[in-house]
Each structure stands twice: as C-alpha cells, then as structure tokens.
C-alpha cells in the first residue's frame, strides 16, 4: 500500500506532520497513521492559547478499538484548533493533510524543525 507523504511537510517518528507558513506551523497526523488507526471516532485537542512542547503529547485520537496520543512536532502556542473534527472526526481519515488538520501553533523555535524527518526519511520509516 502506498501512503501520501507530501514533500513540503516534516514528520515525527510517531506519525505527526507539521507544515510551516511564515511563523505559523500547522499540525496533523499522517495518512499512514490514520490508516493504522482505522475509522477515527473522536479527537481530543488542546484549546487556543495552550502551549505545546516539542515531543510531548498534546491530544488524543481514538478509533473504535484504539487510543493514540498525538505528540507535538514543535513547541509553540496554539492559535487555531480545527473544531470541525469534533463533529466530523472522519476528516482525519478522509483528508489527513488537508481538512483533517488539527492545530495551528506559533513557531517558538524554528530550529526544532531540523530535528524532524524529511519526507524521504519518513517514507523509509513507514516502508
């Protein structure tokens, strides 16, 4: 099976992605992760204004039979939460890199991005 791994994103070993736009970073989970989980039924996310620390858990995504923590790829303050996921968690399955995004955070330390996997490295990770 082949999974979508966009080149312009960076990745965590634990299958979260981050995409930066100026000093804002958008965060979600990968196509591979959503496939592993199966049908997502519930997403728990922090609130706007909460602070994330790179590498630490910030939320939970649940399928019928599994619960996964979601880890922060970068540190920063949450500026937007994808509230659509509360009513339509299936967006995580349908469009993990698009409408299934989870948070926007202000990027506190751009150098953290260097610690993340590039698309090729992540492809190797899930191969």
């Amino acid at each position: 099976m082949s999974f979508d791994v966009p080149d312009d994103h960076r990745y965590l070993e634990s299958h979260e992605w981050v995409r930066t736009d100026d000093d804002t970073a958008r965060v979600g989970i990968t196509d591979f992760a959503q496939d592993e989980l199966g049908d997502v039924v519930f997403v728990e996310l922090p609130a706007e204004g909460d602070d994330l620390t790179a590498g630490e858990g910030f939320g939970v995504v649940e399928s019928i039979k599994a619960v996964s923590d979601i880890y922060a790829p970068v540190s920063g303050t949450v500026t937007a939460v994808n509230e659509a996921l509360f009513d339509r968690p299936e967006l995580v399955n349908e469009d993990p890199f698009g409408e299934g995004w989870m948070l926007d955070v202000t990027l506190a330390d751009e150098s953290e991005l260097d610690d993340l996997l590039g698309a090729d490295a992540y492809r190797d990770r899930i191969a």
Partner: protein
Amino acid sequence: MTTYSQASWTDEDAERYEPLLSEKASERVDIEDSPLPEELTRDSLELPAPAEPELARHYTRLSQMNYGVESGPFPLGSCTMKYNPSFTEDVAALPAAAVHPDRPDRTVQGTLGLSHRLQEYLGRIGGMDAVTLQPPAGAAGEFTGIRIAKAHHRHNDDERSEVVIPDSAHGTNFATAAMAGYDVVELPSGEDGRVDIDALDAAVGEETAALMLTNPNTLGLFERDIERIADIVHDAGGLLYYDGANLNALLGRARPGDMGFDVMHYNVHKTFATPHGGGGPGAGPVGVTEGLAPFLPDPHVRRTDGGYEYYRPDHSIGKVHGYYGNWPVLVKTFAYIARLGDSGLADASAKAVLNANYLAEQVPYEVPFGPFHHEFVASAGEQDAADVAKGMLDHGVHPPTTKWPEIVDEALMTEPTEGESRRSLDQLAAAFEAVHSEDDGTLASAPRRTAAGRIDQVSAARSPRLSWQALDSDD
C-alpha cells in the same frame, strides 16, 4: 455442518427489530395530589406501561435475540464460559438466604456459617491462609488485593510506587494498579510467550509494590519459572499477586499459594460456574497469606465457640463493597464446589485442558505458543480476526476472543471449557474450518444468520445515542 438461524423480529416499517418498550406502550403521568408538598416532587414521569402479557412477550423475544451457554458452544477465551448448573439457582433462591445485611451476627448464623465454609473451601483450593468474599467481581478483587498490598507496605513504612505487569495481562490489571495510585511498569513477554526473567530482573526494584501475574498466562502457558519469579519479587520486597482468571486450568494440579503468591483473586464465574448474566454479577473473593490477613476487608467471618462472628481485622483496608459483596453469587459458588468436591473439581480442569488441546488439533489456524492448558491462542494469519469471529456466528457457535493478546497476530483466543463434548468440539472445529476457507468479501459481510446484521460500530461511537430520549431528539 450445523445450520443456525437466530430468531429475529423485524418491525413492520422495517427500520428496527423488536421495538423499544417506550415505542410499544409509553405513558406519562402527572404527579398530582401526592402526599408530599409540590415543591419536593417532580412534575411528571414518563415510562413504558406494557400490560404483563406484552411485557412477557417483549423480554421473551429479546431473550431469543441473545446467545448464552445453553444456546451453543461459547469458547470465548479468557472468559471461561462453562455450563452453569441449574440447581445452584435454587440454592441461591432458598428463602433462608434472603436476609437483610444489617441483621446482628447471632441472628444470621446460617449466612455466616455458609460464608465461613466457602472461605475455607476457597483457601484450600488456592493454597491461601485467609479469604474474603466481599469483592463483587474479579476486577474488584484485584483492587482489593492491590489495596491490601498497599496497606501492607504502608504498615511497614515502605511506601512503594510501582506495580509490574506483563504485556499479555488482562487490561483490568493495569487499570487496577492505576486506580490504587500506582505507576504501571509493563513487562515485555519473552520469545516463548512467558515472563522474560532478565526483563523482570531489570523491572523489579525497591519501588516495586507487586507483580501481577496470571498463571497459566493468557496464552494458556504455565510460567515454569514461577519460583524464580517469586524470589526476584520477594527479594526486592515486593508482593506477588495472582490473577485467578485462569485457575480453571489448574484445579488439583497446582495452587497459587504453593507457587509463592501472596495474594490472589478468584473469578467465581470462570472457575466455579456461576452464570455471567450478560455482563455480571460476578464475585471476586481474595485470598492472602497469613502475613497479609490482618489487612483483609472489614468484616471477616471467624468461628467462635459454637458459632460464627464478624470481626474487623487489625489493619483492615476497610470495605470494598457497601455490604458483603454479591451474596447470591457466593451461594452458587458454594453449591458448585460442594457438588463437585476434590475429584470433581480436578476432573473439571482435566477436561478443560483436554478440550483445549483437542480443539487446537482440529483448527486450521496456526497456534504459535505452547504447551497450553485450558485455552490456546491461534492466529488468523492473513484473515482479519474480527471478521473470522463474525463468520463463525453464522455457524451457530460463539466465536473466540479476538485480537488479544496482542503478542499473537490477529489472535483467536479460544477456551472451550470442560462443558463441551467431543461432538460439539468437532462442530466448533468445523466452524473454524468453514470460516478459514471463506474469502474476505464473504467474511466482511458476515454475519447473516444472526438477529441483526453487522453493526456499525463507527457511527455508534461518532454520534453516541445512549437512550431512547437521545433517539427522539435526533428525529
């Protein structure tokens, strides 16, 4: 091959099966002229109001849309769905058993006497010095046992922070340890499916309050190194907890107390044939060694001159149930043990182990670990274990536990129990065989012969509707 079709009623509008009671005969009454002032009462009450014939038919239909041990084979691994002898119901229903829990000891000597007898029996069966009957289920027994361990360490001014649990253990073990305020240290299984001694050595230390162990474990494997395991835990000052879920494998062959366990729970439904009632009630008596007896829940029964009395053990953890636990279930337990006695209990384990081994020989799926006892875990391999289960439903058998323990890929955890004859084991094997040769598409659309078709778990969880009121508000 057995053909099977579960009874089912489809409502005339074809949108539901048996209608809800509320859809059949609902009635709202206003609370008026009550003997209480109006400000203390509710305004009205709306509930079903079926006439008794309708009520009887409703629940009879519901029962027919349900599957129990008396319906057919029920090899649900780890759950020990054995036949529940009818007579134990009559024993539990004896009028003299129905007393109020606040009666003074001396007016309920019969109840205390039966309790004492059961404490004794369970102690001998488990090799334990003292047994409390109070915990109302296996998980409550775990909680009681771990609370006892905590009280013991506290009593010694040796508060500890961790409980060590193998990755193959029941989920209740992890949840119990956390509820009691412990951090869980998960122990990876060794390659043979048993406790990895080196990993245990590394995990156990001065923070270890207890190791919780199931033996035989959830793969049905006896922990052959149990004495070494006990030494490692005890040398570190920890206690050894026995999860009694699989005791039906060992009756008369080995006792937790003799293996070095300090505290254990018994699952009376699994080992002593009390009916599970579609989810409960159970009972989870807890046995302890002499050193831990002072920590048992309050009250405990002891013999006096010519009778019995309750007393509070010196360092009791207090109560774990509002009264004395699930009393009727305990009476059934007593009746079962008294019926079988030593030899019958030993034979039950023998036949349970024989049945598991015989069935494992017949199933077309690989069984990666052994030698196993009362249950085995097969792998569905390339098939989806959950689909295998749905396929088996169509053959008039209840499927095994699926996808657990996780150390076996697509696990089919199978426990036929002693209650199945060779013929019904062959029927079970035929069901496995039939499903094994079915293609994925067919299995994905199974079951077809059950009261309802495959149920959409995803939409149930995405938009929870947990009452008929929630259904109404959607319409």
